C-alpha cells in the first residue's frame, strides 16, 4: 500500500517534459519519501495543507482508519475540498468499502477537477480498483475543461500509454505539441505512429504507417528542428524498419550522426549497415579497423569473415586492388588474403603480449564458413585438429574452453575425433593414470574430458566401464582438493566439474541398469560436493531433478530453496520444481510456490506499465517495442497460466466442506464464457539452458523436445482450465437465487448477439446460465480430450539431463480423470434437469451415476494393483506412485464435490415444506432421484475407503523401508585406492573385476568420511540422503491421506 502512494511521485517525475532527461539533470524516480505535492492548487491555506499532509501520511503508513477520520474532519470544515474527498474514497477503498468509495469518487469525477493533486489521488484510486480506462476519461475531461494545461495533457498521454492506445497517444501528443511546441512531444507522436505499425498488418505498416512516421521526422529535419540524440535514434529505427539501410547509413555518416553521442556503438552500427547493404569492401575495412583497436572484437571478426567470404563469392578481381591497401585496410577477397589477415591478428596479439580468444576462434569460424560452402576446408584453411589444438594450448585451462569449442566440434569428422583428443591430450601431458600437478593441468584435463564426452566417447562404454570411470574421476576430484586453498564459499571449486561428470556417468548407468543405487549415489555425491562448494548451483539444479525423479518433493524443495529463485526466475526456472512438487502431494509447498509466483506476475505487470511510460519520458524509443513485447511475453507465460489454474484448483479441491467450497469458488473470477483461449499464444519462458551437460548433441535439449514438452503442458493446461470452469459453473448452480433454466427460457445457441454474447429472448445476458456453461464445458472436455488423444504427444526425455520432467498430462490421461470429469459434469446436468421431473430422467441420473462410479472404481482398482502395490517396491517408480496417488485422490475429491453439489440442490426442495419464508417453491425431487443419489454417494464412499486403506498400506510399507540396505555405497569399510585412471579415446580401459565396482563404493565412502566433520559446520544442512527420502515420502503420504480423509468426512456430510 505504501508503495502505491509513492507511485504518485514515480509516475510523474516531471509533468512537463522539456527535454528527455538524460542531459545532466537527474530525473531518476526516487520513491523514497511520500510528500504531498507542493501547494500550487486551490488549497491556499496552510492549515489545509498540513492536514492534507497528515492524511497522506496515514495512508502511506497503512493507517486507513485514521486517514478516514482525518478526512472526515477536514471535510466538515471544507466540504468542497476535492482532494480530501478523493483521499477519503481511497481510505474507504482500502478499508474494503468499495461501494462507498465508488460513490464518492463518482461525485468528484462529475465535478471534473483539474488540479493535479486531486487528479493524482483519483488516479491512485482508479489504479487500485484496476480501472485504467477511467484514468483516461478523467484526464480527457480535465483536458477539455482546461485545454492548454500541459500537465493534464501529459498525464492524458501517459494514461493512453498504459492502455496501449497508440492512436489516442498520437493525437494527445500532437495536442500537447500545439500547446507547448517542445520536441519531445512531437516525437512522442512519431513514436506512437511507429507503435501503430507494430500492431498493424505488415503491409499497411510498410505502405502507410511507417512512411507517415518517416515524413513526420523528415519535416523536422527540413526545418532544422532536430535537437536530441534520441530523435536521431528514432529516425534510424524508422528507416531500418522499412529496410532503408542506405538512408540510415547516410544519417549515421551525415551531420545528424554527430548527435549520437552516448551511442558508443556508432561504428558497430555502421558496420552492420554495410553488411545489410552488401557493401562488403566497406564492411571489411571498417571491421578491420575495429579489430586493430580490439583484437578480440568477436562481432567484427564475424562481420569481417562474412563479408570477405561474400566478396569472394562475387568473384572480385583480386589483382587490381591489392596494391592499394596495406594489410590492415585491404578489402580481402580471397582465402589466402583472409588467412594472411588472421595471421596478422595472431602476430599483433603476440606483439601486444595479451592472449585473447577471438583470433584463435576466428580460424575455426573461417573453417566453418568454408566447410559450409561445401569446400575442402582442411585443404583451404588448414588442419582442423591443429586449429583446435592451437586454441586449446592457450585456453585449455579456462572453463570457457569447452563452451567455446563446442559449436565447432561437429566439424570434426568421426575419423579425426581420436586425433583431436590425442592432440589436446598431448598438451595436457599426463601419463595414463597420472594425477595433475598443477591447477592449470587439472583444468586442461577437465576440458579434455568434457570435450571427449561431448564427442560421444562415453556412449559406448559398458555400465561397468562407466562405473570405473566414475571411480577414476573421484580420485581426480579428491586429488584436486589440494588446488583449492582457502576457497571462498561464494566461488565454485576448481575441481567441481569432476562431480558433475561423475553424476552424469552414474545417471547413465542408472538409465542402463535401472539400479536405483546409482541414483542414490548421485544424491550422495552431490549433497557432499555441495558442502564443499556451497555456491555451485549446477549441483543444486541436478539435485532438485534427481530428488524429483525419486518422487521426493520435500527433499527437492529443500534444495530448491537454496537456489533462492525469485522474480523473473520464478517464470524461467519454476518449471524445474512447481508441477513436480504438487505431483508428489506436497500441496502446502506447491500452494506457497504458486502464491509467490502469482504475486510476481501481478505486481510486475502493473509495475512494468509505469516503465513503459518512462521510456517516452526519457526518449528511450529503442526500448518501447521491446517493453511491449516483453509485457506480452510475461502475461502470456504458459507457466503463469498453469500456476494460476493449479492454485485455484488446489483451493477448491482442498476445501473441507461444501459451504467452504462455494465460498472459495465465489471469490474466484472464473470466466467461463469469455474464455476464448488461443492456445498457440502461450509463451514458453522456461530456461532450459540452466542445466549444464556435456552429453553428445543427440542427448541435449533440442527445439523439438522443447516444443513437444510445451505442447504437452499446454494440453494439460487446457484440460485443467476446463475442469476449473466446470467446477465454477457447477458451484454456481448451488446459488439459491438461480432461476431454473426453463423459467427464463432456454438459451438458444443460435441467439447470439453481435458482440458474441448469448442472449435470452433478445436480451443480453451478463452471465450465462450456469447450466448452459456447464454443458458447454462438458462437451468441450469431450472434444478437447479427443483431440489430445489424437495428437498423441509422445516424448522420450529420460536420457536428456536438461529436459524437464515428464508433463503431468501423461499420468492425468492414464488415470481417466478427464473421463470421470465428463461423467460427473454430465451427471449434474442430468440431475438439474430431472430435479422434480419424471422418472425417465431419474433413470438417466441413476445410470449417469453408475457410469461415473465405474470409471472411478476401475481407475482406483487397477491403480492400487498395478501402481500403489505393484510399483512401490522400486524407487525407480516412486515418482509415478506418488503422482498416481495424487491423481486418484483428486478424482475422489471431484466425486465428493459433485456429491456435495447435487446434495445442495436437493436440499432446499427437501426443506421447502418447513421453511415458509422461501419465496420460490422449487419442485421437490422424486424419491427415485433421492435414492439414486444416496446410492451414488455410498459408492463413492466405498471407493474412497478402499483408496484410503491402500494408501495406509503404502505408508506402512514405506515406513519400514531402509535405503541403506540398498545402498552399500555409504557403508564405510576398508578404503583402498581406485584402479588406474585412463581417459577413453586416449588409453584403453583396464579389465574390470567385481572388485572395481565395490571400490567405487569405498571411494565414495572415503569421500563421505573425509568431509564428515564439515557436516556439523554447515548450519544443520543434512546430507543424510536416506533420511531425507524417508521424511519426504512420509510427509507426502501424510498430506495426500489427509486430503482424502477430509473428503471422506465431506462425503459423510452429503448424505441425505
Amino acid at each position, binding site marked *: 500500500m505504501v508503495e502505491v502512494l509513492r507511485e504518485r511521485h514515480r509516475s510523474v517525475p516531471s509533468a512537463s517534459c522539456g527535454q528527455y532527461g538524460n542531459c545532466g539533470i*537527474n530525473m531518476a524516480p526516487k520513491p523514497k519519501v511520500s510528500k504531498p505535492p507542493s501547494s500550487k492548487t486551490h488549497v491556499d491555506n496552510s492549515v489545509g495543507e498540513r492536514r492534507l499532509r497528515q492524511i497522506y501520511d496515514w495512508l502511506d503508513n497503512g493507517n486507513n482508519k485514521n486517514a478516514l477520520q482525518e478526512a472526515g474532519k477536514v471535510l466538515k470544515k471544507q466540504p468542497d475540498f476535492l482532494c480530501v474527498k478523493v483521499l477519503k474514497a481511497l481510505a474507504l477503498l482500502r478499508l474494503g468499502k468499495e461501494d462507498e468509495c465508488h460513490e464518492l469518487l463518482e461525485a468528484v469525477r462529475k465535478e471534473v477537477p483539474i488540479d493535479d493533486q486531486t487528479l493524482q489521488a483519483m488516479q491512485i484510486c482508479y489504479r487500485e480498483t484496476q480501472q485504467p480506462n477511467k484514468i483516461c476519461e478523467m484526464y480527457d475531461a480535465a483536458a477539455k475543461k482546461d485545454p492548454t494545461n500541459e500537465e493534464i495533457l501529459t498525464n492524458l498521454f501517459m494514461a493512453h500509454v498504459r492502455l496501449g492506445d497508440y492512436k489516442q497517444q498520437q493525437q494527445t501528443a500532437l495536442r500537447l505539441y500545439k500547446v507547448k511546441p517542445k520536441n519531445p512531444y512531437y516525437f512522442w507522436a512519431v513514436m506512437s505512429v511507429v507503435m501503430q505499425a507494430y500492431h498493424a498488418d505488415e503491409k499497411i505498416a510498410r505502405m502507410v504507417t511507417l512512411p507517415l512516421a518517416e515524413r513526420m521526422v523528415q519535416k523536422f529535419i527540413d526545418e532544422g528542428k532536430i535537437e536530441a540524440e534520441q530523435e536521431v535514434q528514432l529516425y534510424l529505427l524508422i528507416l531500418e524498419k522499412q529496410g532503408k539501410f542506405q538512408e540510415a547509413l547516410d544519417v549515421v555518416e551525415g551531420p545528424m550522426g554527430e548527435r549520437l553521442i*552516448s551511442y*558508443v556503438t556508432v561504428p558497430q552500427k555502421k558496420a552492420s549497415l554495410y553488411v545489410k547493404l552488401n557493401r562488403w569492401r566497406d564492411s571489411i575495412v571498417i571491421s578491420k579497423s575495429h579489430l586493430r583497436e580490439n583484437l578480440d572484437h568477436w562481432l567484427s571478426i564475424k562481420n569481417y569473415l562474412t563479408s570477405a567470404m561474400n566478396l569472394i563469392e562475387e568473384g572480385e578481381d583480386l589483382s587490381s586492388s591489392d596494391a592499394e591497401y596495406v594489410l590492415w585496410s585491404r578489402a580481402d577477397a580471397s582465402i589466402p588474403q583472409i588467412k594472411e589477415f588472421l595471421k596478422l591478428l595472431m602476430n599483433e596479439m603476440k606483439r601486444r603480449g595479451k592472449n585473447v580468444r577471438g583470433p584463435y576462434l576466428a580460424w575455426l569460424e573461417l573453417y566453418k564458413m568454408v566447410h559450409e560452402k561445401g569446400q575442402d576446408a582442411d585443404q583451404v584453411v588448414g588442419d582442423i585438429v591443429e586449429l583446435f589444438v592451437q586454441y586449446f594450448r592457450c585456453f585449455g585451462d579456462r572453463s570457457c574452453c569447452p*563452451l*567455446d569449442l563446442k559449436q565447432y566440434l561437429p566439424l570434426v569428422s568421426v575419423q579425426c575425433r581420436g586425433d583431436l583428443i590425442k592432440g589436446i591430450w598431448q598438451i595436457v601431458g599426463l601419463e595414463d593414470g597420472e594425477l595433475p600437478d598443477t591447477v592449470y593441468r587439472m583444468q586442461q584435463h577437465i576440458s579434455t574430458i568434457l570435450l571427449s564426452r561431448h564427442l560421444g566417447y562415453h556412449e559406448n562404454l559398458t555400465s561397468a566401464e562407466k562405473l570405473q570411470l566414475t571411480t577414476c574421476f573421484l580420485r581426480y576430484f579428491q586429488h584436486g582438493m589440494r588446488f583449492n586453498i582457502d576457497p571462498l564459499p561464494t566461488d565454485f571449486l576448481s575441481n567441481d566439474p569432476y562431480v558433475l561428470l561423475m553424476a552424469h556417468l552414474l545417471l547413465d548407468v542408472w538409465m542402463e541398469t535401472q539400479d536405483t543405487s546409482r541414483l542414490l549415489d548421485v544424491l550422495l555425491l552431490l549433497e557432499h560436493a555441495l558442502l564443499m562448494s556451497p555456491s555451485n548451483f549446477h549441483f543444486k539444479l541436478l539435485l532438485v531433478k534427481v530428488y524429483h525423479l525419486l518422487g521426493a518433493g520435500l527433499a527437492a524443495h529443500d534444495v530448491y530453496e537454496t537456489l533462492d529463485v525469485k522474480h523473473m526466475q520464478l517464470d524461467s526456472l519454476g518449471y524445474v520444481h512447481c508441477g513436480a512438487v504438487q505431483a508428489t502431494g506436497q500441496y502446502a509447498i506447491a500452494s506457497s510456490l504458486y502464491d509467490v509466483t502469482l504475486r510476481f506476475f501481478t505486481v510486475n505487470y502493473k509495475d512494468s506499465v509505469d516503465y513503459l511510460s518512462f521510456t517516452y519520458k526519457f526518449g528511450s524509443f529503442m526500448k518501447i517495442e521491446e517493453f511491449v513485447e516483453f509485457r506480452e511475453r510475461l502475461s502470456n507465460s504458459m507457466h503463469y497460466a498453469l500456476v494460476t489454474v493449479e492454485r485455484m484448483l488446489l483451493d477448491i479441491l482442498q476445501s473441507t466442506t461444501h459451504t467452504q467450497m462455494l465460498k472459495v469458488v465465489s471469490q474466484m473470477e472464473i470466466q467461463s464464457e469469455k474464455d476464448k483461449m488461443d492456445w498457440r499464444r502461450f509463451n514458453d519462458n522456461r*530456461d532450459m539452458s540452466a542445466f549444464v551437460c556435456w552429453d553428445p548433441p543427440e542427448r541435449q535439449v533440442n527445439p523439438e523436445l522443447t516444443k513437444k514438452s510445451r505442447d504437452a503442458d499446454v494440453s494439460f493446461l487446457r484440460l485443467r482450465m476446463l475442469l476449473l470452469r466446470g467446477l465454477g459453473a457447477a458451484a454456481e448452480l448451488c446459488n439459491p437465487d438461480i432461476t431454473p433454466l426453463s423459467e427464463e427460457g432456454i438459451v438458444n445457441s443460435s441467439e447470439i448477439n453481435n458482440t458474441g454474447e448469448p442472449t435470452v429472448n433478445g436480451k443480453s445476458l451478463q452471465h450465462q446460465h450456469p447450466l448452459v456453461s456447464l454443458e458447454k464445458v462438458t462437451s468441450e472436455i469431450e472434444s478437447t480430450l479427443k483431440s489430445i488423444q489424437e495428437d498423441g504427444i509422445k516424448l522420450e526425455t529420460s536420457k536428456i539431463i536438461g529436459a524437464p520432467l515428464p508433463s503431468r498430462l501423461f499420468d492425468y490421461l492414464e488415470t481417466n480423470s478427464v473421463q470421470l470429469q465428463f461423467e460427473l459434469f454430465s451427471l449434474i446436468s442430468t440431475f438439474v434437469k430431472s430435479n422434480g421431473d419424471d422418472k425417465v430422467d431419474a433413470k438417466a441420473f441413476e445410470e449417469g451415476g453408475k457410469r461415473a462410479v465405474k470409471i472411478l472404481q476401475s481407475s482406483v482398482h487397477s491403480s492400487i494393483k498395478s501402481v500403489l502395490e505393484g510399483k512401490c517396491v522400486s524407487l525407480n517408480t516412486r515418482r509415478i506412485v506418488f503422482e498416481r496417488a495424487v491423481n486418484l485422490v483428486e478424482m475422489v475429491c471431484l466425486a465428493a464435490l459433485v456429491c456435495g453439489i447435487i446434495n445442495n440442490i436437493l436440499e432446499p426442495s427437501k426443506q421447502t415444506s418447513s421453511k415458509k419464508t422461501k419465496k420460490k417453491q422449487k419442485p421437490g425431487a422424486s424419491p427415485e432421484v433421492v435414492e439414486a443419489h444416496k446410492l451414488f454417494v455410498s459408492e463413492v464412499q466405498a471407493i474412497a475407503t478402499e483408496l484410503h486403506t491402500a494408501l495406509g498400506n503404502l505408508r506402512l510399507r514405506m515406513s519400514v523401508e531402509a535405503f541403506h540396505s540398498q545402498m552399500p555405497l555409504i557403508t564405510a569399510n576398508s578404503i583402498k585406492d581406485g584402479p588406474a585412471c585412463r581417459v577413453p579415446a586416449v588409453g584403453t580401459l583396464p579389465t574390470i573385476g567385481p572388485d572395481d565396482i565395490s571400490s567405487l563404493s569405498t571411494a565414495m565412502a572415503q569421500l563421505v568420511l573425509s568431509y564428515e566433520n564439515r557436516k556439523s559446520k554447515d548450519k544443520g544442512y543434512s546430507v543424510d540422503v536416506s533420511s531425507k527420502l524417508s521424511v519426504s515420502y512420509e510427509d507426502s503420504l501424510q498430506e495426500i491421506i489427509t486430503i482424502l480423509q477430509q473428503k471422506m468426512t465431506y462425503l459423510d456430510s452429503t448424505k441425505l
Partner: protein
Amino acid sequence: MTTLRPFTCMDLLKFNNVNLDPLTETFGLAFYMQYLAHWPEHFQVAESPSGEIMGYIMGKAEGLGENWHGHVTALTVSPDYRRLGMAATLMSWLEEASEKKQAYFVDLFVRVSNKVAIQMYKQLGYIIYRTVLEYYSGDPDEDAYDMRKACSRDVNKQSVIPLTHPVRPEDVD
C-alpha cells in the same frame, strides 16, 4: 569475446547461469526496467560466440553539477567466463559511456568483505573514496566501500580525494 550489446528484457529470461551465482543479486523486474528505460546505453551484456550470456553491467548517470557521474549498479560475470578480463571490458564500456556524457567520475559500491572485487577495482584504477556504514542490510548489516575513478573532465581529480570519515547510508545521495 568482448563484443557487447545492449541488454534487453528478453535476457532476463535466460540470465540464470549468471544470476544463480550467490553474489549476483536478482532484482525485481521494475528495477531492471527502470534502468532499461532511463539508461539503456549503460546496461550492456557480453555474449559468447555461442550466444551465451557471459556477464553484464548495469549502470546509470546521475548527480548535479560536479557530482554528475556514472554509477555501476551491478557487474557480474558467469562462473564459466571468469579469468578472461570480462569485468574489465564491461567496466571500460561504462567508463567510456560516462566520458561521452561528460561525467566527472564513475563510482560503485562494494561489500567490504568482497576482497576479490575490491582488488579488481583497484587494479582498474578505482580508489576507496569512503566507507558507507551498514549499507547492505542482512544479519549483520555490512559496510560498503564507495569506490571511485575520476573521468577526464575532472582535471584536478577533485572527485577522488578520499573522505576521512565514514558516512551513513542516508547521507549518500
